[in-house]
């Protein structure tokens, strides 16, 4: 029997052939492509409406499908949001690219984009924020909350975790994510490369 996925679904892939990326002076990643957002799941919010006088939206307004005021999507140059489809497995592969109107397509591998790959990677790195824990200074538990003092690549932090066991995600045998009460995330890339004291403190929760 024919596989149902073959003819019914198509992924729009973004490649250097059909799109290019650049960064504005203000540090926003932009795309230039004739592809438009495929499905408009979430209608643009009021404040996202582009002003016709704005530099990047001037040429982008296309009339809606039945001629009325609904703007379906834009093409050309515009700002994009990136999301990792498999953030734990492939940080720079399977990247979903969307503009304010919806998903434009998927980048299979960021490295395909040669020089602009750096922009994309940088954008990804700055939109996924999780300080990496290097050392656990102290870890105390009291009444269902645990209180952490840690050294991270971003500096020293103290944070609180509720229901500690459940708020530690095990990505694989050695990599974990800890989510605190504010839903900030902290990463330990390799629990076994922590120093002995740090490891002993966290061992109870592994």
């Amino acid at each position, binding site marked *: 029997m024919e596989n149902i996925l073959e003819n019914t679904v198509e992924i729009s892939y973004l490649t250097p052939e059909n799109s290019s990326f650049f960064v504005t002076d203000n540090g926003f990643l932009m795309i230039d492509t004739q592809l438009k957002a495929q499905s408009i799941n979430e209608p643009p919010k009021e404040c996202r409406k582009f002003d016709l006088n704005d530099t990047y939206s001037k040429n982008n307004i296309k009339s809606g499908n039945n001629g009325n005021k609904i703007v379906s999507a834009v093409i050309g140059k515009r700002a994009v949001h990136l999301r990792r489809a498999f953030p734990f497995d492939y940080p720079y592969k399977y990247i979903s690219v969307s503009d304010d109107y919806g998903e434009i397509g998927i980048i299979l591998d960021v490295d395909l984009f040669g020089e602009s790959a750096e922009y994309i990677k940088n954008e990804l790195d700055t*939109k996924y924020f999780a300080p990496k824990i290097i050392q656990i200074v102290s870890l105390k538990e009291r009444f269902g909350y645990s209180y952490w003092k840690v050294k991270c690549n971003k500096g*020293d932090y103290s944070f609180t975790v509720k229901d500690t066991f459940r708020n530690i995600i095990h990505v694989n045998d050695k990599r974990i994510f800890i989510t605190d009460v*504010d839903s900030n995330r902290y990463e330990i890339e390799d629990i076994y490369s922590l120093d002995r004291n740090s490891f002993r403190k966290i061992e109870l929760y592994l």
Partner: protein
Amino acid sequence: MKLIKNKKSNLSLIEKRIKELCGENKPNGFFFNLTQDNHIVKGALLFVNEKFIKLTEKDNDLEEDEVDITSMKDFEFCTAVGLSYIRCLKNGELYELCRADMRYNSELSAAAKALNKVVREKKSFDNLSQKNVCKKCGKILKDSATKCPHCSMGKKGVLKRLYMISKPHLPIVLLSVFLFFVTTAIQLITPQIQKSMVDNYINADVSSQNIVHVTKGLFILVLGLAIANLLVRIIGIFRNNILAKAGNKIVIKLCSMTFEKVQSMSLSDISKHTAGDLMSRISNDTAQISRFITNILPSLVEQSLTFVSVIGVLLFYSPKMTLFVVAPIPFVLLLHRAIHRYTHSLYHKQWFVNSEANTVLHDIFKGIRVVKVFGTEKQEIEKYDKAIKNTAIVSEKNEIIWNVLTPVSTFAFGIGSYIITYFVGNKILEGTMSFGDMTMISSYVAFIYGPLRWASRLPRMIMRTFTSVTKVFEVIDETPQIADSENAMNKEIKGKIEFKNVDFSYDNMNDVLKDINLTVSPGEMVGIVGKSGAGKSTLLNLVMRLYDVNSGTILIDGQDIRDYSQECLRSQIGAVLQETFLFSGTIFANIAYANPSASREEIIKAAKLANAHSFIMKLPDGYNTFIGESGYTLSGGERQRIAIARAILVNPKILILDEATASLDTETEKLIQDALKNLIKNRTTIAIAHRLSTLRNATKLYVIDKNTIAESGTHEQLIQKGGIYSGLINAQREMHKISKESDNHE
């Protein structure tokens, strides 16, 4: 998340500067803590003297910029993963104003809204620093939190709570303490009797005395020992009985307190906890607290009493000996303390793996249909095997630790007794002590180790209780977000509903409903139409006051919905929802759920109106048919009709239908439509339906799109308008055609 670095100096640079700028006034503005390239900073955007000033402190450097707000517009709160930021258009170009981690999420979101108001409506900047802040430590609380997790109840608070709970039972607790005094006293005397027994009779020079006299004396002493022992037991029985009674009362009181609280919590409060979490708080934690008050606490008194008095007696006999007894104690306690951390974590782990295994089991049973359909039994067995093996490993470790620890510490405690035996033995050889002294002293020494062994377990028991107390009172102390006003009204409503400029969001960040204005006259039926996720169900939740609006008002009969008591309101609103929940019990009980005083005739009438009577009568047990998890399984349509009967029986003034006919076949839908027709007669009705035909009786339709009302009018008016509604109608006709054609092909 807070940087520790700056704790040393009292005020950081930025705090100093804010003080300079604002003086004694409360700073008007908000904080952030990241730069655009994710460097940690301390940042603030202040509104001072009609100007915006951005302060950024990084590595002990303070940067100060004036923000030209007039060149900016369209502020937008954006979220990424682990951070959020405000972006806007500055001179037509995208510009990032500031960025922060999740801690400042809601602050930033509110700030973006306020900034837009400043630019668009030329309003002044609202003071944003009046956030939901913990009064104790000043940390920002999450919107939903009523209690600061950073400084949750301290030990003092816990003790106060414990006292509060046990206060009504204080006489019993005191009586039991008194009884402990009595038993301790009796127990203290027994070694004296033993001594006299050995010295005066057993080890005495019998030949010099009258043998009959000696036997008689011995008999009296043995009898005395027996009576003392019996007395201790009898008092023990009495004491345990009264304590058990008091304990049960405490458990019942705590359980009902917690349960009542849970029931009075709003939906948004409850959804913060999982069902399992609440369940364990209600059943397990309350039991632990009662165990502490009626068992651990009195034992604590008893054991310390015994300990102190025995030490006293020993000191009286020989201070040197007392030293021998007491000397090993600190070492053993230290040993216990050293391994406590480890054992504590093991306990924790054990608890966790157990609960994990249970979760797996629960999951599998709940999803058993999916498992069977996809034939993944093997996979699930493996999953469960793994979970259970984990439990086994951890519990084995635990057992080993305890099996080693207990004998070792018992031995260590007992070292003193060997020293004493040697010491006393020498004294006997010297002739300064008698055999009786030896018996007595070893009895006392044996007494002293009981409390010690018990004390080594004490920290664990206290810890566990304290955790339970915090857990239980976390629920009891919670202030419900939706509370009745002080003079809440109880009056019969006619059924006029008005929405005036209603805004609502679940998380204070993303608006689900924006600027909703609508009016429903009494007895009118209004339909709500829109794509899924547009906010239709949310609108109905607001009518039922399951949540409170963020701004604007909802009026019923011209009176703010918040002025009615919740009980009054909900008792006059009936709802038939898409997901019908039937409680386990009989069909009769389920229909009568919200009106238990209904007569049998009324129930049958309601079932007839709901088109449920005929199918109920086909069941062998009729209205007594047991439904629910272990009972008879009803089909979706049947359940729906029972729900309708339930709503009919309440005779609500306002009726809410949320997709009441979705996911039913056309024939069943017809039945339910007819049932509903009976129900909505002369009743204010708000209905959501995907199948637009359901709404053909509606006098007015509202189309919700992009979180607000996009169109309104009658069916004909909207068709003529040719907007969203007519688009939806056309799409459904297409669908209908296609499904008909495919039916014909078959």
